């Protein structure tokens, strides 16, 4: 009897030291977004609109979206998102995608004028902690040649207690599964910047601060 109890106890101990699974709640609402920023299409000029679909974990997928113009006499647009300015005025460009029973959509008011005006995209946001570790500040993102620059401003402060503190660009604020690792964090106060090549301003919805070794989300900035 004693040996059975001992065997059972050791078995429980042995089995409880196995690697198991932790689950993170990473479901988000899927979305479709117009990612090209334009204010005005020049009359008789063409412009290629682009959209991005993110699934329910924030992963980008290729889908066949539908494009439409609220005033086809001002802006005509084909099924591939190629638009043409036809007459002076404005029109709402809409992209839609039907996912099961849900219609996802995004729209943009676009003018038709003498010449095409592309909007320079910048984002200003606030960095906030989502943990009890210190993390605060403000930031801006601006486009540079073939990439973006993340400028963390002078009011930034972060805890120095965490090991392996990393910065990610992600489309899911709860997960780094499909995120872009920007850099290991080595600056814990004051202004500094990161250059991220081959990324556009609207490509990611969140900046995520993450302790990689212990899988702790520390904070975030919302970018859209």
């Amino acid at each position, binding site marked *: 009897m004693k040996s059975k109890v001992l065997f059972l106890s050791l078995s429980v*101990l042995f089995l409880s030291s196995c690697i198991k*699974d932790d689950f993170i709640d*990473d479901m988000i609402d899927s979305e479709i977004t117009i990612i090209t920023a334009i204010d005005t299409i020049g009359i008789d000029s063409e412009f290629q609109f682009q959209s991005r679909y993110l699934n329910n974990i924030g992963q980008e997928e290729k889908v066949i979206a539908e494009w439409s113009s609220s005033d086809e006499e001002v802006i005509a647009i084909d099924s591939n998102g190629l638009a043409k300015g036809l007459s002076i005025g404005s029109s709402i460009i809409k992209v839609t995608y039907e996912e099961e029973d849900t219609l996802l959509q995004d729209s943009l008011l676009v003018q038709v004028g003498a010449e095409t005006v592309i909007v320079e995209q910048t984002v200003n946001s606030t960095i906030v902690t989502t943990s*009890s570790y210190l993390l605060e500040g403000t930031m801006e993102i601006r486009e540079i040649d073939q990439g973006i620059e993340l400028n963390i401003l002078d009011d930034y402060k972060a805890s120095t207690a965490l*090991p392996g503190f990393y910065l990610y660009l992600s489309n899911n604020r709860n997960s780094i599964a499909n995120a872009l690792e920007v850099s290991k964090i080595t600056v814990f106060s004051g202004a500094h910047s990161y250059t991220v090549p081959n990324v556009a301003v609207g490509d990611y919805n969140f900046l995520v601060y993450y302790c990689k070794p*212990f*899988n702790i989300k520390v904070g975030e900035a919302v970018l859209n």
Partner: protein
Amino acid sequence: MKKIIFSIAILFAFNVTLQAGGPWAKGKGKAYIKLSEWWTVFDQHYTDVGLLDPNVTTGIYNTALYLEYGLTDKVTTIINGALFSRNYMNNVKSRTTQENIIDGEALNSIGDIDLGVKYSFNKNSKVPISLSVILGLPTGTIGGGTQGNLQTGDGEFNQLVQLDFGSGFQLGQSASYFSGYVGVNNRTQGYSEEFRYGIEFGLGLIQNKLWVSGKLNAVESFKNGDTAETVTSTSIFANNSEFVSLALEASYYVTKNIGISASVASAVRGEIIAAAPAYSIGLFMDIK
């Protein structure tokens, strides 16, 4: 390259203090040997401001040997080491897709070993006092796993100087004792130095076959260790941990010399330390 370890090093401290033998000298030729399994599994930790935050579930299992041997009536040698140590972290999975986001990993090896000498100033006094010097040898492994975050030791050589005091007395029909200690732990490799203290109360029951004790152990960091800001190694971990823990232990003498023990300890306050109970079960031989 400096490697500074996060929370687990301090958990080994739980283990050490749970098994400390108080101010009493063992006596020449006498010994106490204990083989135990010690473990904790935690999915949250105390942050640098003492609040609780979640982390990936992490487990540490130590098969430990503790030995006290009386070289003379006043000098007792102490060995405390993890013969086998396992540190693991769970897989991180998406609840939506059930796919692995981060694979779990484990590290198995020998753990750290402490070697110590305890000198009793007044063995037969009503209030015995002893001084211990304990050397923490970094025999465990650090920097395991893809992220270098698995460890079976703290990676540093430390020297603990500790003063123990106590007194035995009758409480009704039961033998009982009170003891306490204060100590300073000098650590290397960029770790913070520590002030340690604790108190313990024990009660003998069933003709002293069963001993039950309650303990408070504390580590207060001098907060002079390296941080992520001052060390740029790719595998650094935070430092400057501290805690106050409460523990309960029961030891039962099955025969005159052999017994079994069980204990549970948990931090009630802490900074940069696991927030979960640590358990231990053991088999001991008390050669009187």
